């Protein structure tokens, strides 16, 4: 049975819909209201406050911390500067992705790793011979994501002023930066990261002091349109942002039985993380070989034709209709000759972009931008196909996300 998070005392009375789900063993809100619409627009127009405590967190410290993570991660973590965060994935020896997450360099020899799945065993297995200590801080630390265009103004109001500092530490915090700070006297880490593809921050705090941070952010946010937000709204914005999700868009190589179910960094669009010249890291040789040989799959964005959708429904004398929430039921993707070339693993209507979007994996040859593919769509129990065009991801990428 899932357990309450340290913020439960606050989130539970607000969750008038009683809609919860299990996220890594925690009770997590799907949507506070019967519909997630207001929370979705908070992420995009004001600010949404999301409890992300269920993320797995690990503290890696000691003289060899950087070297250990450089070995484990596809991206070179030894180069990560103090006060910076990197998004990366990590692989097994065969170059198949285990998980993806962030690595923050909090100090010269202190890194924090976040992961979607438990990762302690993997860190420990790799750490033999390295002078490091590894702590599973998942239970100790609570976390909140504050995401949206007004998140900066809210944090600026919420954080305690620093003695001697002229401008707010929040304004100095760059995209993918992390800093120590305090909110209502409570020490916190604030990183300018998130899963919404928008301006946003994540706040990390000791669980005993979690409620104080929630209260301070809600108070500071009251004049900036803050809304507690749940996972239904997050699922729509993360698809707009083109972020993939472990267990939905790909599967951990540690968990699947079928080899064909595993994915490589190149197939998932993580090729930009790879630097073959930097020395060995786990999965390097396999990735190098794949680079020569070419990948089998490619993750792509798809935009589904609204005109065809409308026409399809009109054929049944119905107005077009799409599910109100983002969906994870995989849909087969066909090429123009009717051959199945892949599957859409996440799909949603984007109220902001006015487009029906999907994240899909397709076989090599169908991944070029503008390729016309077909996606399955069921109307009145009948399975039909409509055109879906390969489009670049992220679908939505506002300038404010990385603006200084």
């Amino acid at each position, binding site marked *: 049975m899932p357990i309450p998070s340290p913020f439960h005392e606050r989130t539970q009375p607000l969750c008038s819909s009683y809609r919860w789900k299990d996220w890594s063993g925690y009770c997590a809100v799907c949507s506070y209201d019967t*519909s997630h619409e207001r929370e979705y627009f908070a992420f995009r127009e004001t600010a949404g406050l999301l409890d992300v405590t269920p993320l797995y967190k690990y503290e890696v410290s000691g003289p060899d911390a950087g070297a250990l993570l450089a070995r484990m991660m596809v991206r070179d973590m030894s180069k990560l500067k103090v006060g910076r965060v990197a998004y990366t994935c990590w692989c097994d020896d065969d170059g198949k992705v285990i998980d993806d997450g962030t690595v923050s360099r909090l100090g010269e020899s202190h890194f924090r790793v976040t992961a979607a799945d438990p990762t302690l065993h993997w860190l420990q297995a790799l750490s033999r011979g390295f002078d490091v200590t590894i702590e599973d801080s998942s239970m100790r630390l609570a976390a909140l994501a504050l995401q949206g265009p007004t998140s900066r103004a809210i944090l600026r109001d919420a954080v305690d002023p620093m003695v001697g500092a002229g401008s707010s530490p929040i304004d100095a915090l760059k995209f993918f930066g992390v800093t120590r700070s305090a909110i209502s006297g409570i020490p916190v880490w604030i990183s300018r990261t998130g899963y919404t593809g928008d301006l946003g921050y994540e706040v990390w705090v000791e669980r005993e002091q979690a409620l104080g941070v929630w209260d301070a952010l809600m108070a500071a946010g009251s004049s900036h349109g803050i809304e507690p937000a749940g996972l239904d709204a997050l699922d729509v914005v993360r698809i707009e942002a083109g972020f993939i999700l472990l267990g939905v868009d790909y599967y951990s190589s540690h968990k699947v039985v079928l080899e064909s179910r595993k994915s490589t960094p190149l197939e998932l669009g993580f090729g930009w993380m790879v630097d073959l010249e930097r020395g060995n890291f786990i999965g390097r040789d396999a990735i190098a070989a794949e680079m020569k040989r070419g990948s089998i799959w490619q993750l792509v964005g798809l935009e589904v034709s609204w005109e065809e959708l409308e026409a399809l429904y009109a054929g049944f004398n119905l107005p077009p209709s799409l599910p109100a929430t983002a969906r994870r039921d995989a849909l087969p993707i066909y090429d123009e000759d009717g051959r199945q070339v892949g599957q859409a693993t996440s799909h949603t209507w984007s109220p902001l972009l*006015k487009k029906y979007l999907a994240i899909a994996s397709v076989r090599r040859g169908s991944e070029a931008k503008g390729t016309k593919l077909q996606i399955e769509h069921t109307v009145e129990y009948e399975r039909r196909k409509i055109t879906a065009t390969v489009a670049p991801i992220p679908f939505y990428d506002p300038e404010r996300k990385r603006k200084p």
Partner: protein
Amino acid sequence: MTSTQYDAIVVGAGHNGLVCAAYLAKAGRKVLVLERRHQVGGATTTEEIYPGYKFTCCSYVVSLLRPWIIRDLDLPRHGYEILPLEATVTPFPDGRYLVRDSDPERTRRSIAQFSPRDAEVYKRFGQEMAELGRLIKPLIDEPAPDPLSRDPRELLRIARLGKHVRGQGDDWLFANVKIMTMSAVDFLSEYFECEQLIAPMAVSGIIGTFLGIRSPGTAYVLLHHYMGEIDGSFRAWGLPKGGTGAIADAIASSARALGVEIRTNAPVAHLLMQNGSSGAAAGVVLDNGDEIRAKVVISGLDPHRTFLKLVGEKNLEPELAQQVKRFKMRGSSGKVNLALDALPELACLPGYGPHLQGGITIAPSIDYLERAYDDAKYGAFSRKPFMDVLIPSMTDPTLAPPGKHVMSIFVQYAPYHLKEGAADWPNQREAFGDTVIDTLSEYMPNLKDLILHRQVLTPWDLEQIYGLTEGNIFHGELSLEQLAFQRPLAGWSRYQTPVKNLWMCASGTHPGGGIMGAPGALCARTLLGKRAV
């Protein structure tokens, strides 16, 4: 003088003018848009009337903007964002209130306080109206059918429409006849029994018209408001991010990307006629005397302005001039926009909550609304007006400084023709504003303490500032005799005018007013189809 030869000049950069220009440019035509004011948008406008506070001065919600226009012009990429309008709250003097929102069960419970029976019927009514709206949709996405035409293509189209109508069954046809002829209250009373529900629903039938909720023909206007759709969901209304002006900006940005040239602060004085003849337009003459030539001139102005000012009465046949003058403008509403120091509280529902993110409708009873019309019939603004109140900064904080708010109040009735004459509006403007604030304060006791700035727009102001003749927000009433093949003039419903090379593309043409864009797009389509340029 300018040497550039344009295919088309669009007079007026309202949303329809911009849409029309964008479609023409998309088809490769060279288009110039001339706007009298300093900014584009016309009545689709956001203005910083008070520093730091952006008012959606005129139109304030969107629903009817055609989805195919949004796609064709790629508006989301140009900044078009629509936020949902959460709910409608109607407070009553006895302290009770009605909430209608996207949660059907919550809505049902709220209506059930007044009538458990109506609470059940409400959902079915919504479905039936959405169905009606959906089936009428082909009419608003195409030029009006021309019953006099002998063109086989047109006859085929009418036959297709006829088949579409027959195909919907008898019940649908009867419902349609009813909706075309009945009053909003009578129509709603066929479904509902409690006036706490009928009154706030009936107001959709009078918005922008000089009619009362008991006047025949208002049921149709009700339907016009039910045709709204957002993302395929009918009867959905939204708030444009950045105010309605942001929609105009998005369309203008798309138009510019397509090659349209837009000049602001460029008032047009009148049409330029070919060789001094009165029959054909050759371009326009600006206030500063500049002449700009084009193959066609497209008027984004209302029918009165187009014919009586742009063309000039002396260039019109007297019979035509009479017809134009008979086209009813009769503005009946005003706007009061407020800059607020903090959020106001509703007496019936104190505290801050999602209910303030939606519309607040001041329409407590049928008699209240009919009395409001009584005042207007005899040339006075309503002493107790109907009001549609929104706090758009609740959903879109970019409109006001943090913690501060803007409030948009649509007020009816404010008849253009006061018994003292329309020109007396400047003398009555502040009294009108006071009446609005006093009435609203009965439901929001702390409102007066929060007002930092007040903008009052009477129909006279709407005419002066935005060029809406008699302050009519729809470029002419949406009454049955002024719709479809009779809009704006019988025989001239296809965007073409009796003046050669002069076309019309705005709300005074089919399918009418609201931020719909269809007149502009259909004008462009018709014009290109006829190879006018």
